[in-house]
């Protein structure tokens, strides 16, 4: 790192930041220097202290020691308001939006500009138009936020920061919720912002993104800032080593598949979303025992609805589901009966669907199986059995800490996800429906989870994998179908295709048209 005299002061300088929560040292003497007008990546595993550091920068926590300098001036940031005043804007992984309000109203929130809304509203509407044109960030200002896709919601978050005059934009794992093309759009936009001399701090797990986007990258490990590189001078393996402190295998070793009988068949499925819009439009496929069928596609193209309909959460508006060749009766199309038949489901969203955050881990580890006699044969639950069962699952899936009585919310994302997988896989289902298994999960856990999914396949299970991570689709699938606009646009074997080919299918260029 060089800082020649006469150069502009760095946009952000963190000096000796230290923060403990009880016995846990979340940040240890962290130094970080983010030069103005650059895209600075921060990588690290879950629990490495990235989020704590950014929460300190955004005024959610105050550091126990150390100082923050913005544009060379020492500042004290005690609230998000003060962070905004310093020109810092933050885009969180979990959005801070009000779903029933419109885009315009969300952007205005906290910046209404007076008791009467009309003037502020028209000013912000105009500003939104300008920003949209300038950065390719078009959003309908009158659309209801709750009805927008995740990618567009994120766009609203970024617009919120920009409207407030953010010069420094911090994005916390922004691509975790995005589709590849949305991510590309985001990157394009961030480059445009950089071109306008804005400073961007980009937090991620994904080394590919670091390599393609950032100018400089800092690596955090266990609360410490262990290294900073110019991106051009480093490589993914070097970064990965710095992150985990050991060599990791980015590719998974898996033998050839031995597909057996058809376990699950979908015939002309039609599924509508909550608003009645057709999201799955005549999808058919076969899933065999002993294979992983990857469902690729840009998020919002019907994968979520397909997965929910297969799992019995969402009603089917047309078509038929066959399990072991027998049609699934309407009365059986609910999560309870499907579990009994042997369909396991790892939902896409562990926070909202897969776990109950305020519950003890052992109680989250029995969700969906709460009726089973393993947990107590009589009227009352057998607490010992519940705890022992969770303990066994946590051991089998290396959930850390192995504490069945700890609140679910207190586990890191990767460990929460392992808990969900443990629950579904340990019940030994014939068919596994897996949605976004490694979203927001650190590299070490990704490797572990991928191995477990492949092990399921090798044990003769039929695995349906829905993922918007192309790397994941490629690494795991034996066959790939691509969805676009609720229709299957193509089927491929991973060895016969490449990212470009799939990208075309995901963009709706189907086999017939090609």
């Amino acid at each position, binding site marked *: 790192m060089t800082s020649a005299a006469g150069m502009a002061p760095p946009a952000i300088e963190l000096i000796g930041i230290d923060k403990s*929560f009880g016995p846990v040292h979340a940040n240890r003497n962290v130094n970080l220097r983010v030069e103005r007008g650059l895209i600075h990546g921060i990588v690290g595993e879950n629990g490495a202290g990235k989020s*704590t550091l950014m929460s300190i920068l955004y005024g959610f926590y105050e550091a126990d020691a150390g100082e923050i300098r913005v544009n060379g001036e020492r500042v004290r940031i005690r609230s998000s308001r003060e962070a905004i005043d310093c020109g810092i804007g933050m885009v969180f992984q979990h959005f801070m939006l009000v779903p029933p309000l419109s885009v315009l109203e969300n952007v205005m929130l906290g910046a209404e500009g007076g008791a009467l809304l009309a003037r502020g509203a028209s000013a912000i509407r105009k500003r939104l138009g300008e920003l949209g044109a300038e950065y390719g960030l078009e959003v309908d200002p009158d659309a209801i936020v709750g009805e927008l896709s995740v990618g567009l919601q994120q766009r609203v978050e970024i617009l919120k920061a920009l409207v407030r005059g953010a010069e420094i934009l911090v994005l916390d794992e922004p691509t975790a919720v995005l589709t590849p093309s949305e991510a590309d759009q985001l990157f394009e936009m961030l480059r445009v912002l950089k071109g306008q001399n804005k400073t961007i701090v980009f937090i991620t797990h994904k080394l590919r993104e670091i390599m393609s986007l950032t100018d400089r990258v800092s690596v955090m490990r266990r609360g410490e800032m262990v290294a900073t590189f110019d991106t051009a001078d480093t490589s993914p393996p070097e970064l990965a080593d710095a992150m985990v402190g050991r060599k990791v295998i980015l590719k998974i070793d898996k033998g050839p598949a031995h597909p057996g009988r058809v376990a699950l068949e979908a015939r002309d499925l039609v599924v509508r979303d909550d608003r009645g819009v057709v999201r799955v439009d005549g999808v058919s496929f076969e899933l065999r025992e002993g294979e992983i069928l990857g469902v690729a596609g840009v998020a919002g193209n019907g994968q979520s609805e397909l997965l929910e309909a297969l799992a019995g959460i969402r009603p089917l508006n047309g078509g038929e589901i066959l399990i072991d060749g027998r049609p699934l009766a309407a009365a059986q199309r609910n999560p*309870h009966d499907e579990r009994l038949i042997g369909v396991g489901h790892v939902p896409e969203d562990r926070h909202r669907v897969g776990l*109950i*955050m305020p*519950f003890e881990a052992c109680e989250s580890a029995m969700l969906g199986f709460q009726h089973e006699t393993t947990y107590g044969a009589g009227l*009352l*639950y057998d607490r010992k059995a519940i705890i022992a069962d969770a303990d066994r699952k946590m051991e089998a899936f290396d959930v850390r800490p192995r504490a069945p009585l700890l609140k679910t919310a207190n586990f890191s994302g990767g460990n929460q996800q392992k808990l969900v997988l443990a629950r579904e896989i340990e019940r030994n289902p014939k068919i596994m429906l897996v949605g976004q298994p490694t979203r927001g999960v650190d590299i070490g856990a990704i490797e572990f989870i991928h191995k477990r999914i492949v092990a399921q396949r090798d044990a003769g299970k039929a695995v349906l994998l829905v993922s918007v991570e192309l790397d994941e689709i490629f690494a795991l699938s034996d066959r790939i179908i691509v969805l676009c606009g609720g229709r299957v646009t193509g089927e491929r074997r991973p060895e016969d295709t490449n990212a470009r080919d799939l990208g075309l299918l995901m963009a709706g260029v189907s086999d017939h048209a090609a």
Partner: protein
Amino acid sequence: MSTPLKPLPAWADVAVIPLVNVAAAFVISGLVVLAIGENPLQAVQILLTGALGDLEGIGFTLYYATSFIFTGLAVALCFHAGLFNIGVEGQAYFAGLGAALVALHLGFLPGYSLVIVAILAAALFGAAFAAIPGYLQAYRDSHIVITTIMFNYIASAIMGYLLVNVMRVPGQMNAETAAFPANGRVLQFHEVMAWFGVHWPVTPFNLSFLLALVCAFVVWLLIWRTRLGYEIRTVGANPTAAVYGGISPARITILSTLLSGALAGGLAVNVILGEEHRLILEYTSGFGFVGIAVALMGRAHPVGIILAAILFGVLYQGGAELAFEQPKISRDMIVVIQGLVVLFAGALEHMFRRPVATLLARRTAQPPI
């Protein structure tokens, strides 16, 4: 955007926060007493002596506490399912009708089976009255807060009509039914003690108290040790996860409101079968609403509810004594104190969280992950 609160250790959440809230309510109440020219310390002394100073005071205190345990449990059960049952007042009132009908008209039932059937009828009527808002919430998306509030008025109107026009003893001025036969009453404590030759002053304190304790234990078992309780808590904490887990939120909504209404019926058991021995107009006198405060203060946990109910019992009984001893401090003053407790324990529940959390942060807080 609000700053996330640091998690508090369980013991602080359960014990310290409610105590600080109650203390704040008492400090403000003390200032009010001071403002009307009385000595707050003396007022506290009279209040405590009146409520706990002798067996008679204790009897009345526990009698009130019994009512509050029932209504507190009723509210808390719905809390766990994420429902706010404001209608305990009306459900309890309607439950009184069930108890009275049995006690008055099924007199042929032998011995104490009459009172047992009357207790069951109270639970049944309470549940039935709660069933309608429960159904509307579960299947028609009508918010339970709105419907239960309206149902309180409906209960009041129905009962007023029945007591004035149908059930009143002919020739009687008061809007009340005839007295229940002896085997249609819950035994009072002094009667039971007399069997053992122990003298206990005559108070309304009756065996419903034991039923309340049993109900508290059963509610605890239900919520934390049964499948239904797990499903209730799951629906309350995360309805989407509940659906994923094969739980029907609509079914849980109905079941919790039914159970809540049945618990509300306990108020009728204590007051109608245990003390009044006849159904009287507006007998619930707001105890159903106090149940909301009790449930909030007790943090929806049966043990907390019992403690909060006893505190409110002390306030009711001691307050009556205080109004008697110190004419300047009227009965309304006690309502003010109760209101302040509700304010601090319920509405301002989180006000002292941050200071307490900050105080404890260095030693016991957990890291965000």
